[in-house]
């Protein structure tokens, strides 16, 4: 065993030597130039397969509609056609990018560049060994028809290789002769050599590699992609966050317990340098893992994107024969859309509402003089009243209709691309076998035929941006029933019960950025959250033992993540009950809940994973605000940690 380790040690020193790097680089460059030249000759040779032959429909422009109107189109029709074509162009671009032959040469060049980076990171032999291992293990599995395990092994090897390269890069970055960097680098070594972190690393890498095997190929492609994004990004984030918390706490707490800190802090290392080094190490580790996971998820999503969608034939995708599944995938999932909810005509501060509330309370006091007698009861009554009004506003009686106004859609109109109405209808007990018919009316134009909707699930309706007014408003009428044309007007066929939309159950989405940029922002925000957690864990471990500090840091993390739910729950949690009786023990509970909500509301409102899965934009403004808030919190924790750490006695009584 020792001899094997010594052998690996010697091999590692060899691959880190400059001579090896130079020789390997020359070999790689020659191979890459040869491969690109061979491919170019093959691609340009007579009889070579033309790119357009692969998917002719994808490269030819969309044919004009067969039944083009004979008479000149009106301005409204022209705008609608223009919007439709813009939507088609988006899809066409997506298809074109997939079949470009230049990608092969660029891909080869990028691979060669990556290989050079690997060699100069001192990992040339490590990667060769990984590739050899992959061939040895995967080939027999493939030959035996065990594609799933083969994919799993390949995934594990790819993720491990990426992680190794990034860690090596980080080690180089942190190799400076400065205490903060030295401590951070030491933490990275600790991360890959200690069991506490290795367990999480193994879980993460195996989990992510195994995730594709859990996707049901019978499901529509968009659901597969959403499931993968949700578990890939969200699951990875939770594992990395847990690792970050436990690893940072362990690194600081165990160093105090095992007294290595004595030898560090008796060197010229200031308390702030020690804490900054520990934080940097934890943040760098989480960054490495986040990059590996994000890159893995992104690349596998791109792979999934190239798989046949529901109802598609493999290899043939064009705008004309594009399935609804793919269209939704491309425009609603792998997208970056901004969501706009409808405006409420009344706010709680509106004089009309306050007058109404005053009358309500007055009436109540006629029956019970103590009704809403104290501030807490009054607040609850007014809040409940407003919520009741909101609920009523989102509810439509059978055969009735209501108008909702969406504002701030100027950007959607400027972009002149299709917008999406996302709605969720609740009625009665949301029986799954019931179908309701809802008629929409946008800017005075009835959208026929009426939509048949299932109760409960979210559904969508594509709308033209031409329906948006010049002021950026969309006026949407919703009829609870089916409006059908008859000879002398319209016939309403009402649904049997009231329908209502939940708080976020009626929104307009429009494209406002690219999926790739959105993915990048989401990954970055997730890392900023992890960096915050690293500081939280380091600070907690400056004065608490490992179990207590872990509990404190992890609980804070869970609470911060669950603040959204807590906030919703607090809306219904009051010290006073419906009869106005105050349960005093609820007062401090609610106060604590409110403080937590206030503290973490910005953290919770970011919702990066949910946004990514829903194809919603995390815009730069929100992104910058999130980073700013988290940076301030991280800085505040750092300051607190320094104060605590300076006051601590790192040594204890020898007789203890």
């Amino acid at each position, binding site marked *: 065993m*020792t001899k094997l380790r*010594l052998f690996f*040690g010697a091999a590692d020193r060899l691959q880190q030597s400059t001579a090896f790097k130079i020789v390997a680089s020359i070999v790689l460059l020659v191979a890459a130039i040869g491969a690109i030249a061979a491919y170019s000759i093959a691609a340009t040779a007579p009889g070579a397969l033309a790119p357009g032959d692969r998917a002719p429909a994808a490269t030819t422009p969309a044919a004009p509609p067969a039944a083009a109107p004979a008479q000149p189109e009106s301005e409204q029709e022209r705008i609608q056609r223009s919007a439709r074509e813009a939507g088609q162009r988006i899809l066409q671009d997506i298809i074109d990018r997939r079949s470009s032959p230049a990608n092969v040469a660029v891909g080869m060049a990028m691979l060669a560049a990556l290989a050079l980076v690997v060699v100069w990171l001192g990992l040339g032999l490590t990667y060769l060994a990984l590739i050899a291992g992959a061939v040895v293990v995967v080939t027999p599995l493939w030959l035996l028809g065990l594609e799933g395990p083969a994919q799993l092994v390949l995934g594990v090897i790819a993720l491990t290789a990426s992680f190794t390269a990034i860690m090596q890069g980080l080690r180089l970055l942190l190799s*400076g*002769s*400065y*205490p903060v*960097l*030295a*401590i951070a*680098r*030491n933490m990275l*070594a*600790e991360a890959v*050599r*200690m069991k506490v972190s290795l367990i999480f690393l193994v879980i993460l890498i195996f989990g992510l590699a195994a995730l594709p095997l859990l996707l049901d190929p019978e499901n529509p492609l968009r659901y597969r992609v959403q499931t993968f994004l949700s578990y890939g990004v969200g699951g990875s984030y939770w594992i990395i966050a847990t690792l970050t918390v436990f690893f940072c706490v362990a690194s600081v707490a165990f160093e105090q317990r*095992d*007294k*290595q800190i*004595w*030898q*560090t*802090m*008796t*060197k*010229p*290392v*200031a308390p702030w340098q020690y804490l900054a080094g520990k934080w940097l190490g934890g943040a760098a580790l989480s960054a490495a893992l986040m990059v590996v996971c994000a890159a893995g998820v992104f690349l596998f999503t791109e792979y999934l994107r190239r798989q046949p969608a529901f109802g598609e034939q493999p290899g043939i995708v064009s705008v004309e024969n594009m399935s609804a599944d793919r269209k939704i995938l491309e425009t609603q999932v792998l997208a970056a859309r901004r969501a706009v909810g409808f405006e409420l005509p009344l706010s709680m501060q509106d004089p009309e509402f306050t007058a109404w509330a005053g009358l309500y309370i007055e009436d109540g006091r006629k029956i019970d003089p103590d009704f809403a007698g104290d501030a807490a009861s009054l607040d609850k009554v007014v809040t409940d009243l407003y919520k009741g009004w909101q609920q009523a506003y989102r509810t439509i009686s059978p055969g009735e209709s209501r108008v909702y106004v969406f504002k701030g859609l100027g950007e959607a109109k400027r972009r002149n691309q299709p917008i999406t109405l996302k709605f969720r209808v609740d009625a009665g007990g949301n029986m799954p076998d019931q179908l309701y018919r809802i008629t929409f009316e946008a800017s005075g134009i009835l959208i026929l035929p009426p939509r048949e909707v299932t109760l409960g699930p979210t559904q969508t309706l594509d709308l033209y941006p031409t329906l948006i007014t010049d002021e950026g408003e969309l006026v949407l009428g919703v009829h609870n029933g089916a409006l059908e044309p008859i000879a002398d007007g319209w016939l309403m066929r009402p649904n049997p019960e009231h329908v209502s939309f939940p708080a976020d159950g009626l929104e307009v989405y429009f494209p406002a950025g690219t999926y790739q940029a959105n993915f990048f922002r989401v990954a970055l925000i997730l890392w900023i959250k992890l960096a915050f957690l690293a500081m939280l864990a380091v600070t907690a471990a400056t004065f608490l033992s490992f179990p207590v500090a872990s509990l404190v840091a992890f609980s804070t993390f869970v609470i911060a993540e669950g603040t959204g739910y807590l906030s919703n729950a607090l809306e219904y949690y009051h010290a006073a009950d419906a009869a106005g009786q105050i349960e005093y023990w609820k007062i401090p509970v609610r106060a604590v809940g409110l403080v937590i909500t206030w503290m973490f509301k910005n953290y919770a409102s970011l919702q990066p994973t949910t946004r990514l899965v829903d194809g919603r934009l995390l815009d730069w403004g929100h992104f910058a605000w999130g980073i700013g808030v988290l940076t301030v919190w991280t800085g505040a924790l750092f300051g607190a940690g320094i104060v605590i750490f*300076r006051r601590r*006695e*790192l*040594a*204890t*009584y*020898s*007789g*203890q």
Partner: protein
Amino acid sequence: MTRASPNPASTLPRPDPVVACQGLTKVFKDFWMRDRARAVDNLTFEVRPREVFGLLGPNGSGKSTTIKLLLGLLKPTSGRIAVFGKPPTDVATKKRIGYLPEESYLYPFLNARETLDYYGKLFELDSKVRRRRVDELLEMVGLASAQFRVVREYSKGMQRRIGIAQALINDPDFLILDEPTTGLDPIGTRQIKDLILELGRRGKTILLSSHLLADVEDVVDRMVILYGGRTRAEGSCEDLLESSTRTAVEADTLDDATVAEIDRVIRARSGGAKAIVKVSRPRQTLEELFLKIVEQARAERLETSGAQHGGATASFLRGEPEGDALIGHLVRAADEPPLTPVAPPLPAPAAPAGPDASIIESLTSGGPPDNGAPPAPRPAAAAPAHKPQKKLDTREVDLSVIDSLVERDADAPATPPERPA
């Protein structure tokens, strides 16, 4: 062995102490803030520049607590501490301090080289200097061949050696050694003693804490003996250990008649007031026997997977120029004639820890073994005026007695040893 008693008659201004503790008290409290243990109680002492200072006492006497207070790992309950005139928490001061804790608390996941490299970075040492020092220290502590093994696989003694190396990585002005020989074999112990002496010769200040009295006696200039956190005795080794009522004479084996003759001479010269009290044959110490056996095994090239025989003291610790400075010096020397006389060659590295190492060293350096002058010191290290090799102080012996015996001894060598000046 060296001994440097301070010269009270000196008219030079007394240099600032490296460590000054005044009324230092440390009381450990329990959760309810009740006094649990008074580890250090009103302790006052100074460690002066360029001295080897011993902190002695039994287990639990407050030695380690005092050291932790000096390093800022603990905060005093009362009293004052200054290290190089600054509070113990001063970060810049720590650049001048090397510390070896009572146990080597190392990162188990690092190997020896990475460990030393890490600590070198904490001192912001340049990568070239760091690499050279790591190489030399690994060689010095005998772990060069095990440098790529992780520390968790090391034996306690090997970990101790790495601990010692990390304490020296910054070439400290002030070295704090808390039980440095714990876990070391006799060779390592001997090497530590030699190292302390060598660093002492270079003018380093060393605070040595130990309860192994033999270790301390061999190397310290001054000491304080603690018990229950309080000072029980303080002074130089001579002051504390020397017996003023006895004289010991060591010679080749003597027969009974010769001993009787000596006794007769003593009685005659003292008028019958003095006589030989005890005649014994000196025993070889166990340490000497052990060292001899190991040296023999090494000479036979027997294999071991443990620590190798430690090499010479790292050159940077001997005050030799490092890296680029050395190369620059050599280049300049080749290009132009030196303006100042060339310094005499540096002394040979400390000889492998054998019983006669100091004698061999003094012979190779061309000077008498006890001439008191440190071999080729750097200017900074020139201050200790007198650190004579530990030997019998002939000034306090009646030399004529010995002379008369030598002249009458039939087995005496043809050329009697030169009479000491």
